[in-house]
C-alpha cells in the first residue's frame, strides 16, 4: 500500500476557510440554510465547516447528520455488509436551503441515496453539495458538487482518505492511497 499526502493540515485549514466564505457569499447569515453532514465521514467535514462558520458569523449554523444506509442502491450487492449510523436532524428541511456535506465525491451513489433520505425530513427549497475532494471521471450518476475543496484525478485502484486530528490521526490530512498486489 502506498500513501501519498495530497493536502496537509495548513492547506486543509485554508481550504475549509475558502469553502466557508463561498458558502457565506450564497447563504448570507444562514437564516434559511442548514448543513447536513453525510454519515459516517461527512460528519467531520460538516462539524469543521460549522465551527468555522460560527467563528466568522458569530452564530450557530444549524447542522444535522444524515445516514443514507437504508436508501443505498447496493444493499445485498456488496461483498461486505453495510452497518447503519445514526441520523440526527432536529429540524425540518422543509423550505430550507440545504447544503449536503461529504468528504469525498466518487461515484455519486451516496449523494443520490442522501437526496432520497433527506426527503423524509421535508421538501427543501434548494440543495447544494459541498465536498472536500472531487474524484474526477469516476461518476456513475449525473451528480456534481457546488463547492469543491480540491479536484483529484485518481485510478480505480486508489482511494482518498481524509483524516482529522483527534479522530485516530495526529494531524488533519488528506491522503491518496494506492493498493498494491503485495
Amino acid at each position, binding site marked *: 500500500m502506498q500513501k501519498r499526502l495530497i493536502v496537509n493540515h495548513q492547506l486543509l485549514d485554508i481550504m475549509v476557510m475558502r469553502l466557508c466564505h463561498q458558502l457565506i457569499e450564497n447563504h448570507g447569515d444562514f437564516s434559511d440554510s442548514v448543513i447536513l453532514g453525510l454519515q459516517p465521514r461527512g460528519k467531520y467535514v460538516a462539524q469543521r465547516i460549522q465551527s468555522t462558520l460560527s467563528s466568522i458569523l458569530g452564530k450557530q449554523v444549524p447542522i444535522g447528520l444524515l*445516514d443514507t*444506509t*437504508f*436508501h443505498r442502491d447496493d*444493499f*445485498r450487492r456488496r461483498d*461486505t*455488509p*453495510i*452497518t*447503519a*449510523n*445514526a*441520523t440526527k436532524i432536529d429540524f*425540518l428541511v422543509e423550505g430550507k436551503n440545504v447544503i449536503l456535506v461529504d468528504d469525498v465525491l466518487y461515484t455519486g451513489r451516496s449523494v443520490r441515496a442522501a437526496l*432520497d*433520505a433527506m*426527503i*423524509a*425530513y*421535508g421538501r427543501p427549497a434548494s440543495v447544494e453539495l459541498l465536498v472536500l475532494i472531487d474524484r474526477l471521471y469516476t461518476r456513475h450518476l449525473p451528480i456534481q458538487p457546488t463547492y469543491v475543496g480540491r479536484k483529484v484525478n485518481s485510478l480505480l485502484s486508489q482511494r482518498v482518505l481524509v483524516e482529522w486530528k483527534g479522530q485516530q490521526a495526529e494531524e488533519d490530512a488528506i491522503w491518496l492511497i494506492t493498493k498494491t498486489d503485495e
Partner: protein
Amino acid sequence: MQELSVRHLLGIKDITPQDIQLIFETADNFKDVLNRPIKKVPSLRDITIANVFFENSTRTRLSFELAEKRLSADVINFSSSGSSVKKGETLLDTVNNILAMKVDMIVMRHSSPGAPHFLSKHIPANIVNAGDGTHEHPTQALLDSFSIRERLGEVAGKKVVIIGDILHSRVALSNIFALQMQGAEVMVCGPITLLPKYIQQLGVKVETNVRKALEWCDVANVLRIQLERQQMKYFPSLREYTLYYGIDKKLLDSLNKEIVLMHPGPINRGVELSSDAADSHHSIILNQVENGVAVRMAVLYLLAQKG
C-alpha cells in the same frame, strides 16, 4: 462492518450476544425512521416476504407486516384456516408452493415446536420464527430486552421476573435465553403447576409468591394466561389465579419502589393485570408494541443481507 452470525432467526439459543447488540443498534436507527414524517425506507424493495401463519395471531402478524411494508418489501399473507393445509397438504409442500412464487423470506408461526428449524433445512429462503408451539418466540424476546434497555439504560445486571404461565409460554423461554445472554438475572414466578419441572436447570430462580418476586425484581414481565393452550386445568379458577398471581396498582404501590411492568399482549384485563396497573406509569406495554416494529425491521433487514 458487522453482520449476523445466522441466516435464519429460529431462536435466541442460536444467536450470539454480538448478534443481539447488532439487532439493537440497527433497531435504534429504525426507531428513528418510524418517528419521521415519512416512515418508510426502500431497503427491501426487491424482496418478497411471506407471512405464513399456521396458528392465529393478530398483533405479531400485524407488527411483522408493518415492519415489512416500512422496509418497502412486497408482502403476502398466508393463514392455514381455509387453506389446503386443511385438505391434508404437508408443511413442506405448502411452503414449497409459496416459494415457487419467488418468495425470498418466510416469517412463520406454527403450533409445533421445531417447525421452522425443519423448514430451514429444506428450503433456500431466510426464515424468521414468529413463534413455534411452546418453544421460542425470538423477536418478542428481542423487543422485550430492547424495551428494558430503552427504559433502564441497559439489560446487564438487571433483575427480571417472568410471571405467569411459564409452562405454555414460548415468550418465557426466549426471554430467559435473551436476558441471560445480556447479563441479566432471571426469575420465574407462577403456580407450581405452571412452572416446568426442571426450569432451574436453565439457571433461573424460581418463586411461587408473587409479592416476593416483585420485591426482588427491577422488571416484571407478566405473561398472559393461555387458556387455549391448556389441555387440562392447572389451577382451580381464574378468580383464584387473580387472587394469588394478579398484579394491581395497590400491590405495586405497596412495594415502595420503581419497577417496570411489561406484558407481551394481549392482556387479560382483570386476570393477570388489573387495568390500573396496566395503565400505570410502571407500564411500558405500549412501548413494547412500538419497539416491536423497529426490532422486526432490524431482524428482516439484517437477514436480507445474508442472502
